[in-house]
């Protein structure tokens, strides 16, 4: 880490505090300053750190990224293409890191519910936001989270009061237009479900141009007792871009959290996804699918923290790799001594479609309770031979067999998305992506069993 990198971000910070960032309350300014100091201490991580051993972020560190002063243009057509078709949804659009009221369309919400931009919630000094922001994910945990917090400005904010269900899913579109060279957005998302509340959120990360950009997002999810929260992330940024996101959920007794990550885009994408299971009989589902091609590097680092007894957690990450792509999966599960009867299952399966693709997969189980059921499994391999033989025995040629089995492999991951409309949207994105990456127009639509 060179001093000039730190100086660059200090200068950016000074300009940021002078400009648009001023309207925020004093405690936010305070938080940002502390986070900047933290980032100045650590700088960007290097491969010397265990957590970053396989993912070299030097290309991010050596570029002088800047916040665009204003947002670029996004057409209605683009939004039409990316919203969930045929489904009512609260559409919340962010362009180059800023909420766009013109492009957004939030329907009628239950009393006391907020769906919109964080900047607006901050300028009204929303009490829930103040009590939750940066509480789920302390910025000290990760240099990118510290940098994000230093430049914290806008992002998706969802707050659902106790006992309230938001029926239609919330769909946040984070669109980057790369209006300036080396544009960065530090999106800051917050989802708070109070006691017994329920909400479903889809976050689509997209590029509206081919220009390189850097997304450095943080998403905090707070699921209070008895709540049900599903957050699905679809990352489809252009292949020249860098994507880093820290997602962290904190859930309490009897709550149910579903997180899903679909990673398709970016040159380098790093996802840190953690769930703190902080109450009895809370259920945690953390799943994902990554499809890497070309020279892409897609990294998921997950962490599940079992603190109390009787909590099930399920984790399935699947990966498909072609060309010279690389993927990293690191799945940490920590079970505290008090967390008896923990039932935790972690699986990571990778399908390699070329000899030059590489996967580094590592489970990390630290279990300090004795009466638990914790399993993990990792696999890296080619197409299932028995399945391939079955298809071929029905006359299906090798090429089409490969396509069908690849789709099937992906389907086993996407079936973990609970909300039907979201699952359909994820499936469609996967099929579209596979069409271009497998060079086959004949890719079947994904169907799921009952």
């Amino acid at each position, binding site marked *: 880490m060179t001093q000039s990198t730190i100086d660059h971000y200090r200068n950016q910070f000074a300009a940021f505090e002078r400009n648009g960032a001023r309207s925020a309350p004093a405690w936010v300014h305070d938080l940002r300053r502390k986070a900047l100091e933290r980032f100045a201490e650590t700088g960007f991580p290097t491969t010397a750190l265990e957590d970053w051993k396989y993912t070299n972020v030097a290309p991010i560190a050596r570029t002088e990224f800047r916040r665009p002063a204003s947002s670029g243009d996004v057409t209605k057509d683009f939004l039409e293409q990316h919203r969930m078709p045929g489904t009512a949804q609260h559409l919340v659009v962010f362009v180059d890191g800023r909420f766009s009221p013109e492009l957004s369309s939030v329907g009628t919400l239950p009393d006391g519910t907020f769906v919109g931009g964080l900047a607006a919630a901050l300028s009204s000094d929303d009490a829930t936001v103040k009590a939750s922001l940066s509480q789920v994910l302390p910025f000290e945990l990760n240099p990118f989270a510290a940098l994000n917090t230093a430049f914290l400005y806008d992002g998706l904010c969802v707050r659902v009061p106790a006992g309230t269900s938001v029926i239609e899913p919330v769909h946040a579109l984070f669109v980057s237009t790369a209006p300036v060279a080396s544009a960065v957005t530090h999106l800051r998302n917050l989802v708070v479900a109070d006691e017994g509340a329920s909400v479903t959120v889809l976050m689509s990360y997209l590029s509206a141009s081919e220009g390189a950009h850097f997304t450095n997002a943080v998403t905090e999810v707070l699921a209070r007792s008895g709540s049900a929260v599903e957050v699905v992330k679809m990352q489809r940024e252009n292949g020249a871009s860098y994507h880093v996101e820290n997602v962290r959920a904190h859930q309490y007794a009897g709550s149910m959290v579903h997180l899903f990550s679909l990673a398709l885009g970016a040159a380098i994408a790093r996802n840190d996804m953690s769930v703190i299971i902080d109450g009895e009989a809370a259920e945690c589902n953390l799943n994902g699918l990554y499809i890497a091609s070309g020279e892409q590097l897609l990294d998921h680092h997950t962490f599940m923290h079992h603190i109390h007894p009787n909590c099930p957690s399920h984790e399935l990450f699947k990966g498909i790799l072609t060309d010279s792509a690389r993927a990293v999966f690191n799945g940490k599960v920590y079970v505290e001594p008090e967390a008896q009867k923990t039932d935790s299952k972690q699986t990571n399966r990778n399908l390699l479609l070329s000899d030059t693709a590489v996967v580094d997969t590592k489970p990390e189980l630290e279990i300090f309770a004795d009466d638990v059921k914790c399993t993990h499994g990792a696999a890296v391999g080619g197409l299932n*031979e*028995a*399945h391939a*033989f*079955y*298809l*071929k*025995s*029905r*006359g*299906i*040629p*090798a090429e*089409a*067999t490969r396509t*069908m*089995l690849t*789709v*099937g*492999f*992906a*389907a*086993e991951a996407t*079936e973990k998305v609970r909300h039907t409309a979201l699952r359909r949207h994820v499936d469609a994105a996967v099929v579209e992506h596979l069409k271009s990456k497998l060079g086959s127009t004949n890719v*079947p*639509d*994904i*169907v*799921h*069993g*009952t």
Partner: protein
Amino acid sequence: MIEIKNLHANVNGREILKGIDLTVKAGEVHAIMGPNGSGKSTLAQVLAGHPAYQVTQGSVLLDGKDLLDMEPEERSHAGLFLAFQYPVEIPGVSNSYFLKAGLNEIRKARGEEELDSMQFLKLLKEKMKLVEMEASFANRPVNEGFSGGEKKRNEILQMAVLEPKLAILDETDSGLDIDALKIVAEGVNKLRSPKNAAIVVTHYQRLLNYIVPDFVHVLVNGRIVKSGGKELALELEANGYDTIKEELQQTA
């Protein structure tokens, strides 16, 4: 139709088939019976071209063409069909997409025009009625979550759609109740014609009450040790395989 001569096959370096000779002519139905582990499924898989089995000796001609030289999909295009003893589940891909893909490849190979979606769905509907399968199975992932009986019925559906010249049924009757068994047998019988042939692998005589074979062969330890007419199946049912094994030992 098919001419199998002195067929030897290994799996993991162990010889399972130890010289099989079998000729099936068009219009015939042959039953292969034999104790567990005798090599019945191995024979079926070798004919379909499963890559786990190595043929070490012998030849197989399908309509005069060298079957062993073909890829599994080419064997299917040439008119061979295997109803698996243990059909696998293919997630994510619908039964109907899968079947349409196979059928159109086979039609191409036969020099017929491919069916479009409408034509295919019409055909599929008819065939599903034939095997008494609910329409919803068309849109479910191939065999995923199907019961044992539903999987077997799905195999017969595939056979009915693909209309092979030579169908090999590997214990399609096992695990079926009598009603399902009748449906499966009916499916096979409807396809019976002077131009087609079938090899029915079974453990029990039961199925042969409904699919009456022209010939019955007994496979023991990788060899056909006895062949006869349909009455041989009844004999086996009454006496079990032990009598045959004893006979073998006496002649040995």
